[in-house]
């Protein structure tokens, strides 16, 4: 017993003295007894906590003014606590009286990642059924995507969409006024017209599940061969860090694809404050420092036509967990990517452990990291890209390439090291194809493999190069990545060939985008 108290220099002394166990009252209403401590020592009662939570969501959207009335917004639901709480906030916002109602049109997307998280088909089915039950209760249009479908994505997903080119973007205020006027007009026109949008909305809800999903259970999951292909892709990634990045990339692309094909112009992601803080440090460690603002900011417009917003980024994971528990928000937990026992964990998890460990002893750690990240702005990067020339973008993450200046710095040595590392591996592979026919017996003969790897590198940003090195052979990559890479390489080649015939004006630009 005494041992437990003695050997902890780690937690004991640094930790705040636990408050006395007498019941504390809520700091806000000063009446009800408190049930949750948030921020640094503020104790809230249930009712005040709820009010605070709901208000924060509306305040976030109100402050940023990027979601226009009537706009179609796709909520990316993972089944986890943050995105489930986000869904509840949107439902709350839509059920308010007219003056305070959220005015956008929500839809939901769920990406089924069960295959790579080690779930059996039965478990995946069960998870899907639970997600569907949650989704159906909302009545919002629902789009289901399996991670396996990444193999069917078009190469265009890796290109920036035209940013609302056809219609001039009105100011937020004008848009709201227009919308309200339109609504009044409809009300004046009588019932038939007024209920039209609602009827349309209903149509959409019925449309989606019937059109896409056969009702029969068992037929919902992608073909086993596809799953196998996906598993190979993840299997080939050497480190858990690369696997995590890969998963994140495929997920983002699937969500983006859903948004584009279904006509959504905004995507809401449920990153919490805790998650944003972890992501900030993780991405810094991954060499994504140049893109921190885009990767973690409130709005991310790298895809051009579809913007990602993160309205949950001021909620601590703790607040979300308490909210979900108190107000019955159901979640569906999918196990995270599993490393093999022996493997080291990923940078993502190390950072999470590190930050949460600090947070336990210094309760403002996470918010400090978050606030620091908050000061980063995407504006400079975007401003420099604005005048005429569209910058070259990374094939995988679509951020403007940051590798031009870095050629002589950290990058070059890593590339050389990479080449050296590849050679012996190539020899080993050679050994396996003793069947004779000059390497064609193996699915990947070493030399072309090395070539295609090298062909990818100029298309990638610094961080994606590092990740790419830890991923498997480029042949395991989904076709859309390969085809887009080929397209870009060809273009670059062609451009080089005709370079001397070009006038030095930036005339070639429109064709680029």
């Amino acid at each position, binding site marked *: 017993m005494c041992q437990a108290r003695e050997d902890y220099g780690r937690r004991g002394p640094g930790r705040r003295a*636990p408050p006395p166990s007498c019941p504390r009252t809520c700091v806000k209403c000063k009446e009800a007894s408190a049930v949750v401590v948030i921020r640094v020592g503020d104790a809230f009662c249930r009712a005040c906590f709820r009010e605070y939570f709901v208000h924060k969501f509306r305040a976030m959207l109100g402050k940023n003014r990027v979601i226009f009335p009537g706009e179609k917004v796709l909520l990316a639901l993972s089944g986890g606590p943050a995105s489930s709480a986000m869904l509840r906030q949107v439902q709350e916002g839509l059920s308010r009286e007219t003056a305070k109602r959220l005015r956008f049109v929500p839809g939901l997307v769920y990406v089924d990642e069960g295959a790579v998280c080690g779930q059996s088909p039965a478990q995946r089915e069960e998870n899907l059924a639970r997600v569907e039950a949650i989704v159906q209760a909302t009545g919002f249009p629902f789009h289901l995507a399996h991670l396996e479908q990444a193999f069917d994505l078009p190469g265009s997903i890796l290109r920036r969409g035209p940013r609302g080119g056809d219609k001039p973007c009105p100011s937020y205020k004008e848009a709201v006024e227009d919308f309200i006027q339109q609504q009044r007009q409809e009300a004046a026109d009588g019932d038939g017209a007024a209920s039209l949008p609602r009827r349309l909305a209903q149509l959409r809800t019925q449309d989606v599940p019937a059109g896409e999903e056969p009702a029969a259970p068992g037929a919902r999951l992608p073909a086993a061969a596809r799953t196998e292909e996906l598993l190979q892709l993840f299997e080939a990634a050497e480190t858990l860090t690369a696997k995590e990045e890969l998963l994140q990339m495929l997920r983002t692309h699937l969500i983006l694809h859903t948004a584009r094909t279904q006509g959504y112009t905004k995507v809401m992601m449920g990153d919490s404050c805790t998650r944003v803080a972890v992501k900030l440090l993780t991405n810094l460690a991954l060499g994504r420092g140049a893109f921190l603002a885009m990767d973690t900011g409130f709005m991310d417009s790298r895809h051009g036509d579809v913007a990602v917003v993160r309205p949950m980024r001021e909620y601590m994971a*703790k607040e979300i967990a*308490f909210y979900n*528990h108190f107000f019955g928000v159901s979640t569906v937990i999918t196990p995270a990517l599993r490393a093999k026992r022996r493997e080291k964990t990923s940078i993502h998890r190390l950072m999470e452990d590190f930050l949460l460990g600090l947070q336990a002893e210094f309760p403002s750690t996470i918010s400090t990291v978050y606030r620091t990240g908050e000061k980063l702005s995407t504006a400079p990067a975007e401003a420099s890209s604005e005048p005429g020339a569209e910058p070259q973008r990374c094939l995988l993450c679509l951020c403007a390439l940051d590798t031009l200046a870095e050629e002589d710095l950290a990058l070059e040595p890593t590339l050389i090291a990479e080449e050296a590392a590849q050679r012996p591996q190539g020899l080993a592979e050679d050994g396996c194809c003793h069947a004779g026919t000059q390497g064609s017996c193996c699915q990947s003969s070493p030399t072309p493999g090395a070539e295609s790897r090298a062909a990818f590198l100029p298309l990638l940003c610094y961080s994606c190069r590092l990740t790419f090195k830890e991923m498997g052979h480029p042949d395991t990559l989904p076709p859309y990545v390969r085809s887009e890479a080929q397209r870009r390489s060809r273009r670059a080649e062609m451009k080089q060939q005709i370079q001397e015939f070009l006038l030095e004006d930036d005339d070639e630009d429109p064709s680029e985008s």
Partner: protein
Amino acid sequence: MAAPVSLQVEFGGGAELLFDGVKKHQVTLPCQPEPWDIRNLLKWIKQNLLKERPELFMQGDSVRPGILVLINDADWELMGELDYKLQDQDNVLFISTLHGG
């Protein structure tokens, strides 16, 4: 001498995965000389309920940072954390907010 204490122990947010996926556990803590507090309960859980990888649930004599503890539906920070003295029929809930496992 403390009498045996009956508790409902629950796990959520993914923490249940370390306990065979079982969310609710009805437990009865045996008699022991000192009164049961959360510190002792955690030790008991580690020995009796935890199925795998204790380092994902415990750190030192407390829960791993990122795992929330609710005692009778209230934040344990309001109840004295590890020193809270368990009463018969208390409900203790552990919610994981952690991403990776």
